[in-house]
């Protein structure tokens, strides 16, 4: 089975709040100095899901694809170090400032170019913008079924058996291949890379594809092709209003808290 993992490089979510800055003029996040961007956590989990299937099914292959600038190659290398076989970086100035639609369109073009793909695994959402759209839109572009927010993925039945997280538990669904799956944090932690795989990953060449390599026009990718317009990016105002719950014991304070939450229609 050939699984593609879509991996995004994002600003480190551990960046201290005081180092997080937005450039209001360009509506962009200013990269924090000295804090390297990281692989989106959900994508690391998607990679883990793909690698477990690879290990359970001899002859399987995992290819990691990222859309991003030169630095995104390090996110690809990280997944290669976890055990993925090949990496492709979609790197072209024309891809910049796209939205979920153009990202999915570009990734789908790369998946089509690879040709023999059986499944695409994405994180449930990118941990920076939290849109949660790209996996769904890739499925739309490919015309494949999609199962989102998976806590478990195994081969079986018609293709894949997927445990999907729902509000009050999880449901098990089966999907034929090829298919797209978005993987959630309930799946579990991604593995730490092993030293021999790190050494092998460092030696691997990451393939780079541009707009023309994917058979796309510059007008349908990146900012030119985006359908979503970002009006304004700003940080929420910081501040806190503290209300202490009255009561002489923890029980009385808890009762007061419940009453307050009910009165405010929060519960």
């Amino acid at each position, binding site marked *: 089975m050939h699984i593609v993992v879509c991996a995004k490089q994002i600003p480190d979510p551990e960046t201290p709040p*005081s180092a997080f800055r937005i450039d209001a003029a360009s509506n962009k996040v200013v990269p924090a100095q000295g804090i390297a961007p990281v692989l989106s956590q959900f994508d690391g989990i998607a990679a883990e899901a793909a690698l477990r299937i690879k290990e359970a099914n001899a002859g399987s292959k995992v290819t990691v694809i990222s859309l991003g600038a030169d630095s995104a190659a*390090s996110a690809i290398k*990280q997944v290669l170090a976890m055990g993925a076989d090949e990496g492709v970086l979609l790197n072209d100035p024309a891809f910049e400032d796209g939205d979920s639609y153009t990202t999915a369109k570009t990734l789908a073009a790369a998946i089509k170019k690879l040709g023999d793909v059986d499944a695409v695994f994405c994180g449930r959402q990118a941990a920076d913008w939290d849109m949660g759209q790209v996996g769904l839109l890739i499925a739309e572009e490919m015309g494949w079924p999609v199962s989102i927010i998976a806590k478990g993925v195994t081969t079986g039945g018609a293709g894949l058996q997927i445990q999907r997280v729902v509000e009050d538990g999880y449901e098990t669904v089966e999907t034929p291949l090829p298919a797209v799956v978005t993987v959630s944090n309930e799946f579990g932690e991604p593995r*730490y*890379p*092993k*030293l*021999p795989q790190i*050494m092998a990953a460092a030696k691997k060449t990451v393939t780079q594809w541009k707009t023309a390599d994917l058979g796309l026009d510059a007008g349908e990718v990146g900012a030119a092709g985006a359908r979503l317009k970002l009006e304004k990016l700003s940080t929420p105002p910081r501040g806190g209003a503290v209300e202490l719950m009255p009561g002489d014991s923890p029980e009385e304070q808890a009762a007061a808290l419940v009453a307050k939450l009910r009165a405010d229609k929060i519960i």
Partner: protein
Amino acid sequence: MDMQRTEEQQLIIDTVRKFIREEIRPLEADLDPDAYELNPEDDERLRAMVKEMGMYQMGLPVEYGGPGVDIVTRTMLAEEMSQHRAGLYAPAYGAFGSSPPEHLYKGTDEQKEKYLYPVIRGEKHAFFGLSEPSGGSDPARSIRTRGVRDGDSWVINGGKLWNSGADTADFGIVYVRTDPTKGRQGITAFLVDTDTPGFRVQRLVQVLRSHYTTELSFTDMRIPHSQILGEEGGGFALANDTLAHNRIPYASACLGIAVYAQELAIEWAKQRVTFGEPLANRQAIQWMLVDNEIDMRTSRWIALDAAARAQRGESFRFESSMAKLLCTEAAGRVIDRCMQIHGGLGMAKDMPFERWYREVRIRRIGEGTSEIQRVVMARDLLNVRSGS
């Protein structure tokens, strides 16, 4: 000179950094502020994880079954592994294992079977016995522990000081004066089992940090001639070689706590408001933070340069002494400034500064004082034997 990390180095560093932040630091919230070990379950779990990652004993050469990670990468990793509260003396609480004392690679096949391989397997632990109450920086003169040949054995009398772990070790590498007429050529290294009759842990010596060290006494301790490590009279050269090597990661580990302290101080300076302004807006604080950065970046270059020279097989004794001196002193200044920036919180055991402050002070003395490093450098610079 290109000091850019290779992709391989970056991936290893990223992995170790994640491990320290996600596996080690959270455990410290529940540990005593002075703890130097984890509870046995966590210890076992983390060691197993690291072994699975293929990162246990990273410095162990390939021919002994290790990954043989080079000294430049290990110098970078020493800076990563110490970035937590106990990190200076217990990096990752030992989860990454430690490589055997390098002297053991120079042992005979029998010695390797008896000591080296069991140490690699974690079955035996060693201590290092060089310093004596009469001194440590000048072993050629200060070693008074005396060995006298008697048939196939040596009878050893004397004692050692500052031997960390000697009370729990299975054996030690002990430096003994075997020929008082030959100065530095009269010193021999012996492999001494701690259950040898006449071997005694005289007392546990409490020091600035939470873990103690020991004082040892040897009374008519009979050690077979076959327990000599290296050549008879070759102990001084053996010690010198290893000490120069050890100084580089020793230096770099100091930078790790400085890096973490600086991170905390920058964040605090931005948060803490005094007289209506964040500390970060005060020039007095800004200059402290900038001085920290200058201290860290300059000493890091020197440490990596020393490691790169060692790796290329060039002479690096001067550079390793300079790295040891610069990193330990720079880290001391950084921790001191960060403590000052944190005010009262800097002294509290809720924060790691007070522990680092005590422990980093030892680093200017351990593995050769700042002064002896200058003596070593002066000897090289002036090409004279006696600079002291």
